[in-house]
């Protein structure tokens, strides 16, 4: 549920959905405290009281005046004594069924979770409950979440037992393989890739490690120790996992038609169409070594236009590489 409901305006139908869920929520539980309900529905206790009053006040005037809902909330506990008509929740809609089923089927393919029968049991029960609303979800899918990552098993093992990890990690931008001890914090499946998030003891900082770049991994016998105050990335508000900092170097590329993929692949700050299908993009990065490599890779399909010094280095790199062939 969203945290503070006061922050946004709620439409009449949104509130109606909540009211229709409230009665069955109470009926399906033995003891229902106001505070817990308010938390589960993402409302304040005052808003909850207003909801309960609105339900209690429902009156049908014909053929005979009749109040179909009777409830009380004395002493902070909600008791529904009569509400036959809306005693069960509304069926799941297509979007609702799709959101859960697509996510569950994706989880079933993730190496870190895939094993285990709880997923298939949950999927089967949800499909049965959703009925025909579950059909369109077959046309929405997530496939190929990267290669089956053997490292994922070690990471989940270390996470479940709170152990330290030792990894050999490859950084393509610098063409470096380094060994480090990492106190694992989380396994992230974001933007189509798997990452280990953890406290890197060499860097003395929280780092993300792409699982497909881990060349070797061992679960050590030592207990992990994540320092107090080590900050996890906020995966739910950042636009990208790699939100650039304004202090980073600003890089400008001009991309030919065959180099336009760069704009898809790297988070660009600005893009600008040029003549003949060329595109000018700018991006920010704290580390420019990979930019030189990217410029070499692009060849005539791209031109690094700024900063100037970096462009000069790229020229020197290319000249040195060509010397090898002469």
């Amino acid at each position, binding site marked *: 549920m969203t945290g503070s409901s006061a922050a946004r305006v*709620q439409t009449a139908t949104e509130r109606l959905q909540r009211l229709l869920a409230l009665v069955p929520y109470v009926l399906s539980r033995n003891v229902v405290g106001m505070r817990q309900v308010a938390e589960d529905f993402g409302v304040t206790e005052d808003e909850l009281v207003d909801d309960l009053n609105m339900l209690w006040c429902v009156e049908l005037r014909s053929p005979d005046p009749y109040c179909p809902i009777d409830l009380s909330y004395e002493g902070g506990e909600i008791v529904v004594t009569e509400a036959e008509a809306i005693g069960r929740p509304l069926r799941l809609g297509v979007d609702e069924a799709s959101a859960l089923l697509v*996510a569950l089927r994706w989880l079933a393919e993730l190496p870190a979770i895939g094993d285990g029968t709880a997923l298939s049991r949950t999927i089967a029960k949800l499909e049965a409950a959703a009925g025909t609303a579950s059909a369109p979800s077959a046309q929405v899918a997530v496939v190929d979440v990267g290669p089956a990552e053997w490292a994922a098993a070690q990471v989940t093992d270390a996470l479940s037992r709170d152990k330290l990890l030792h990894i050999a990690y490859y950084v393509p931008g610098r063409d470096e393989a380094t060994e480090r001890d990492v106190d694992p914090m989380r396994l992230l499946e974001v933007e189509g890739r798997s990452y280990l998030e953890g406290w890197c003891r060499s860097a003395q900082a929280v780092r993300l490690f792409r699982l497909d770049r881990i060349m070797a991994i061992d679960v050590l016998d030592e207990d992990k120790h994540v320092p107090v105050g080590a900050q996890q990335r906020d995966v739910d508000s950042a636009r990208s996992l790699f939100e650039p900092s304004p202090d980073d170097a600003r890089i400008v590329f001009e991309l030919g038609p065959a180099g336009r993929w760069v704009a898809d692949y790297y988070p660009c700050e600005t893009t600008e169409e040029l003549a003949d299908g060329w595109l000018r993009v700018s991006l920010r990065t704290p580390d420019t070594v990979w930019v030189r490599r990217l410029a070499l890779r692009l060849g005539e399909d791209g031109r690094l236009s700024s900063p100037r010094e970096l462009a000069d280095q790229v020229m020197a790199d290319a000249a040195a590489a060509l010397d090898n062939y002469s």
Partner: protein
Amino acid sequence: MSRRKTERLLSLVVCLLSARRYLTAAQIRAAVPGYPESFDAFKRMFERDKDELRELGIPLETGMNPGDEESGYRITRQAYELPDIRLEPDEAAILGLAARVWRRAELAGAAEGALLKLRAAGIDAQDMSQPGIEPRLQTPDPAFRLLYEAVRDARPVSFSHQTAGRGTSQVRHVEPWGVVNRRGRWYVVGHDTDRGEQRVFRMSRIDGPVSFTGPPGSVSVPPDTDVRAAVRVWDTEPSTPRTCVIRLRAGAGHGLRRHAIHIDPADQPGWDLVELTFTEVGWWSEQLAWFGPDVVVLEPTDLRDAVIGRLKGVTA
């Protein structure tokens, strides 16, 4: 106004769920408080209310009781109520994890709505699941929402799409069969009606608004269509692997060494001879150019020429 509307809609739902038979508009007006006096104004408001309830997925049916002369409305319990569903604690935990998957994406509201109904059915979906695993989907492409709706509602669409590697856009007419995420990117699969073929389009290359070009229900997905497979094989060209030999500076090219067939010391000190497989010359020459002066291609000739050409492109 909004509060009175909520009260009226709530009463309307309760009224129709309580009735055993179809109620005429006049009967509904008599029973449900909050409608205006004038019959015309009532009719207009009632029409809007019906639409809004249907938008919420409330199965409002129209029909006539035997012997009646006027049609009416009803909501049957069977069509309205979520069937009984009970989850074990491990299943509820998985459900909580699944509901978080869309948190920063297009279907976040739908996932929350589903969780609300399941909570109302007595399920306590834990917000905590297996320790430390956070799967997330993103939908950054503006085209996602309408293409998802088009697939859901079986409606044909048109959109402007950039051809890969050309930088030019073309308007495509598509009967969409599915939306698929592969390695973090969204694609729409469907029948391209201009070309008369199945096609896959990457959503990030759609550079204009998506328009519906037909009514809901007017697209039929051929039986045996596998939208997952269509996207999986897209852009993976079937080709036979070839072998190349490169000279690689000692201590460099770890990414290449991981996939090497052979690594031997080269005659020149400070270099290794590395044998690798590749499939496509253009793509592989890009991968090798990445390593700049640390890689020298010895054979085959076409790959060697491709890398030299790429490097010359930089200095040109």
